[in-house]
């Protein structure tokens, strides 16, 4: 007699993922899918895909899916959640989508306290379009539009989304996590599940920022890219819960 201790989540469809080898999107997709299954809400969920590498996410999550214009996923989520408030709604957005073209939409969804969940994948680059500089790109990080490395003098310092969102009075839960090793993957799962639990309980706007790798965009083998999350991204983007108004003592960062 043997017992299955790990297998592909039924929260994912049979469609093979279109991501590059070692890309963190696949790991994060699994955690979202597993959480929805474990919370028994998969069939009553609407996933909103962004523009970027995860534009086809609606093919992978085994629930209803809506594809949104670049950066507009939170506004689309508001439109859906307001008219069917008993269903579970989440957006899945990258850092080009959420932290650049979609800043107005994400901030005002949180500002209204809309009761949905945002999975924000921060890999410090525009992966889909060929590894261009994002607002989240690190200082001196080379990209296809910062070929000599990002220069603070002309492009400023990388934007810290979780810290920013934690200042919004109506945001309920903001946490930054990482998927560079299996211990952190477990913590990420916990945060994602908590965000969905908050939504189910009607506790308001939740966002989990996941530090992720882009091996191709970073020009690194996947294992090295995973290590760069820990050694490169995490010092600038510290992990942790930045806001949890329903926690013991209930406060922001």
């Amino acid at each position, binding site marked *: 007699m043997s017992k299955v201790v790990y297998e592909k989540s039924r929260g994912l469809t049979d469609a093979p993922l279109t991501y590059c080898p070692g890309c963190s999107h696949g790991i994060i997709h699994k955690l979202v899918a597993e959480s929805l299954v474990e919370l028994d809400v998969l069939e009553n969920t609407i996933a909103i895909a962004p523009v970027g590498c995860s534009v086809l996410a609606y093919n992978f999550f085994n*629930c209803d899916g809506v594809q949104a214009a670049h950066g507009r996923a939170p506004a689309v989520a508001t439109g859906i959640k307001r008219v069917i408030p008993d269903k579970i709604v989440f957006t899945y957005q990258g850092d080009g989508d959420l932290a650049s073209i979609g800043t107005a939409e994400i901030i005002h969804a949180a500002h209204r306290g809309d009761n949905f969940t945002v999975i924000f994948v921060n890999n410090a680059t525009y992966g889909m379009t060929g590894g261009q500089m994002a607002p989240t790109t690190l200082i001196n990080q080379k990209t296809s539009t910062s070929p000599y490395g990002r220069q603070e003098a002309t492009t400023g310092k990388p934007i810290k989304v979780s810290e920013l969102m934690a200042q919004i009075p109506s945001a309920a839960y903001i946490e930054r996590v990482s998927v560079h090793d299996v211990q952190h993957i477990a913590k990420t799962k916990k945060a994602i599940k908590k965000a969905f639990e908050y939504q189910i309980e009607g506790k308001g706007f939740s966002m989990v920022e996941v530090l992720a790798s882009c091996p191709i965009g970073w020009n690194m083998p996947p294992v090295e890219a995973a290590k760069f999350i820990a050694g490169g991204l995490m010092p600038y983007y510290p992990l942790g819960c930045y806001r949890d108004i329903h926690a013991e003592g209930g406060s922001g960062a």
Partner: protein
Amino acid sequence: MKVLMKGNDAISEAAIQAGCKAFFGYPITPQNEIPEYMSRKMEASGGVFVQAESEVGAINMIYGAASAGVRCMTTSSSPGMALKQEGISYICGANLPCVIVNVARCGPGLGGILPAQSDYFQSTRGGGNGDYYMPVFAPSTVQECWDLVFHAFDVADKYRTPTLILLEGLLGQMMEPLEMTKRPPVTVDKSWCTDGNADKRPRNVVTSLSLYAEVLEQMNIDRFKVYEEITKNELMVENSVKDGDTVAIVAYGTPSRIALNAIEELAAEGINAGLIRPITLWPYPYEVFQNLPSSVEHILVAELSMGQMVEDVRLGVEGKYPVHFYGRTGGSIFEPSEIAAKVREIVKGAK
């Protein structure tokens, strides 16, 4: 029993009566009465009102609510409509039904808040990217605003398309007697919608994306077949040109009422003219120009713009008649006497 109502209020109440369950908007003059009305009444009627962060936000909320299968509406005015074009393109690409209202003002840019008809191209040619159209309705009275809201929701649902009601700020702000006639919504199949019921049916997807040329081409061809159906079934035009008329005046919206006064003035002095008033600006009633009485010698297009619809008239006329144009812009509105003078000039020139 008739009530006295502003065009903007009539549009708002008609939407609620037509079963609109979600309104998303952003303040801009001269349409503010609509979001204000909706903020007072939507919740009580079991609907949702959200003042969005921008017109971009509002149109994307519409994309969401429409994908969830509910009747929804957004309203704006010209510069705000410019911002909504991205969302409208996505809504067309994803085949979502909704109603959009443009209470138009003058432009370009910030322009001014006075009425204009200079959004004709934006409305009828697809202001966003890609191959698409949407039905555009142009009311000329408050009563017609009311009636066309019900119709616009039905057409949207029936063909899975956004529909646009285009009126001048003048009509939005004007009070007129109104018969609040109700009619039940059309029954349509919405089993395609993403309303989170994948436990009762296969999962649904709403998207405008297709990465395969032959698939996307077929999607576009199929959508244009729907456009053919719309053109066949939904064309609306009022044509009062009769035998003996030498001039056909073409005007839509409130300017068509000014044209009617000019026609009366001209009749008194023995110049016979008739009015062609397109009610749908897309699809456009091109055929009407092929079946005019033989007495017609000239076409005059009167618009509150530098000349936009006049291009469609020329397409419809196909060179059969000289097409003249009279327009005012920047918020200026022509008097009946100005149009009459233009007709006299045309007729005189012909002799």
